């Protein structure tokens, strides 16, 4: 009977395609929007990935990594004196203006790192060496900067090219791969001292202190010790965890709580769900109604309600699987294109396909429920009523 059920489904190609489209659309919208949201949330923590260090010490009131409240340079010494600290290095982080060759301005994320240890330096160099930062006016840029800082995107910048940060000359000595920043601007690395030189003068300039714990000490314990000893805020940088001390988690939750981003994406995901429910339920119900006389005939011929329900579930399951598969493939293709193009943000953790699958199963269950209800209540004698 299952083959008959499938042939009944495929035979009405218009409704079959409509059903698959409904599930596919819902899958694509929910997967793609959730993944873009996750990608965007990852971008909020790009500085943590691009200037990696196990512990970040920041001013007490800092709640997320893109918020900069400067500390005194003497705070570095206080942190170094804490128990369990292997090393502690300064980091300057700030958004600065770059003047392009044609006179226009664009913003960049400037990172100033310690010129001795290069703690916080990029990890994936494409060209050049990190040590070249010690040369005069030297900067390392990410590959996005090559296009963004060129007045002509068809002629990207290259090694040795020169531009101005706040009217001070900068020369490219290295090119690296980096995660995109939340603000969309490219990343530029230079030494801490030179970064301060590029930035407008302020009384305090130290954005963060990058710390590594001693061997055998956990970052959590050392961070707690630093907080207790200095009164500064010490976050760990261990990736997304459900720990309040992790800077990635704190940053993402800050954006979730304090911006409209989750509402915006959440609304689209809900729209995807509603559209999926509306199209799938309505079309499948119409499909059942169209075939009601056949189900009635089958029932008269001795097909039990259980058998008819299994036929309907087979039909819905096939539609669900095909629609989900195509929708997920489309979302993945979108993701691959986004990653290749470096925007829009896209990150699909394992949980998203499984969660969307759960939602699709729910939609299919709802769609089949209406049909099953109709067929179960169908009077077999209906076939004799013309």
């Amino acid at each position: 009977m299952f083959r008959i059920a499938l042939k009944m489904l495929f035979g009405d190609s218009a409704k079959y395609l409509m059903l698959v489209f409904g599930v596919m659309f819902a899958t694509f919208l929910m997967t793609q929007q959730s993944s873009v949201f996750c990608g965007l949330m990852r971008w909020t923590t790009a500085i943590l990935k691009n200037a990696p260090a196990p512990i970040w010490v920041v001013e007490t009131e800092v709640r997320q990594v893109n918020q900069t409240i400067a500390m005194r340079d003497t705070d570095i010494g206080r942190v170094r004196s804490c128990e369990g600290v292997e090393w502690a290095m300064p980091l300057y982080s700030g958004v600065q203006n770059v003047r392009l060759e044609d006179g226009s301005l664009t913003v960049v994320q400037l990172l100033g790192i310690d010129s001795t240890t290069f703690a916080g330096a990029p990890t994936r160099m494409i060209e050049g060496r990190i040590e070249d930062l010690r040369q005069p006016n030297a900067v390392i840029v990410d590959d996005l900067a090559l296009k963004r800082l060129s007045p002509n995107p068809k002629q990207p910048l290259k090694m040795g090219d020169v531009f101005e940060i706040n009217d001070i000359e900068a020369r490219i000595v290295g090119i690296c791969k980096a995660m995109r920043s939340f603000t969309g601007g490219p990343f530029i690395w230079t030494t801490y001292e030179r970064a301060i030189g590029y930035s407008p003068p302020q009384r305090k300039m130290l954005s963060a202190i990058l710390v590594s714990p001693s061997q055998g000490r956990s970052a959590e314990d050392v961070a707690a010790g630093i907080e207790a000893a200095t009164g500064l805020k010490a976050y760990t940088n261990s990736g997304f965890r459900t720990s309040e001390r992790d800077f990635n988690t704190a940053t993402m939750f800050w954006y979730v709580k304090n911006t409209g981003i989750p509402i915006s994406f959440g609304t689209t995901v809900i729209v995807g769900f509603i559209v999926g429910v509306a199209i799938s339920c309505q079309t499948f119900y119409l499909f059942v109604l169209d075939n009601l006389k056949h189900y009635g005939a089958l029932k008269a011929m001795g097909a039990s309600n259980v058998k008819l329900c299994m036929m309907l579930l087979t039909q819905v399951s096939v539609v669900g699987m095909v629609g989900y598969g195509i929708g997920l493939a489309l979302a993945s293709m979108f993701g691959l294109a986004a990653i290749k193009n470096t925007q829009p943000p896209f990150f699909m953790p394992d949980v998203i396909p499984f969660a969307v699958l759960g939602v699709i199963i729910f939609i299919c269950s709802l769609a089949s429920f209406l049909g099953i209800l109709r067929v179960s209540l169908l009077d077999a004698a209906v076939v004799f009523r013309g």
Partner: protein
Amino acid sequence: MSLPPIAAQARQITKSFGNGNAKVQVLHGIDLDAYESEILMLLGPSGCGKTTLISILAGTLTPDDGELEVLGEPLHRMKSSAITRFRAKNVGFIFQQFNLIPTISCEENVAVPLLIQGMSLSKALPHARKSLEEVGLIEHRKKRPNQLSGGQQQRVAIARALVHQPRLIICDEPTAALDAENGQRVMELFRNLMRQPGRCAIVVTHDHRILRYSDRIATMNDGRIVESVATADFDFDHHR
């Protein structure tokens, strides 16, 4: 001469639809016997209760009152699930509008009663082909129903009704959707296939031209059987 065994026996069957003031009594204490190896035709004007009666005889509708024994089974005392199984095994159906599934082939349509009984499609198809051969449509087995004429579709429906060797065949206006010539052909074929001993067919019809293919004719009016006679004794002129 002794009568053949009874295939279906209805005693004081009543059926009504609706409630309160809207209640309509459709059958008023029907008594009816249908014998094995006969074709019994139910005749009567629209609304007289013919369809309700065959629905009850087929086990697709429950009577309000009365006793109903079909092929030795007391349907009026059986549970719905048992009646469903009984129908699957013992009853073949031929509907007015054929009710063939349009998206599957003729042989698959014919195989449906066997599939309902749990037989696999690969095992059911040879039986379906044999049944199609009996109705002379073996060469059309791969076609879909809408590729056949009305008469051919009804022959496929007959093949479907007989594929699982049921002992009771319920036919609802089998020639209503056919022209006169095709109607006669279908009934001739049906009559020939019904020659197998032990089978009983109950046919509801408006079509006086096919009455001659019956063994007995029961006339209904206003929810009652008003006459039940052998076809040879039926007054065709009176009912014309």
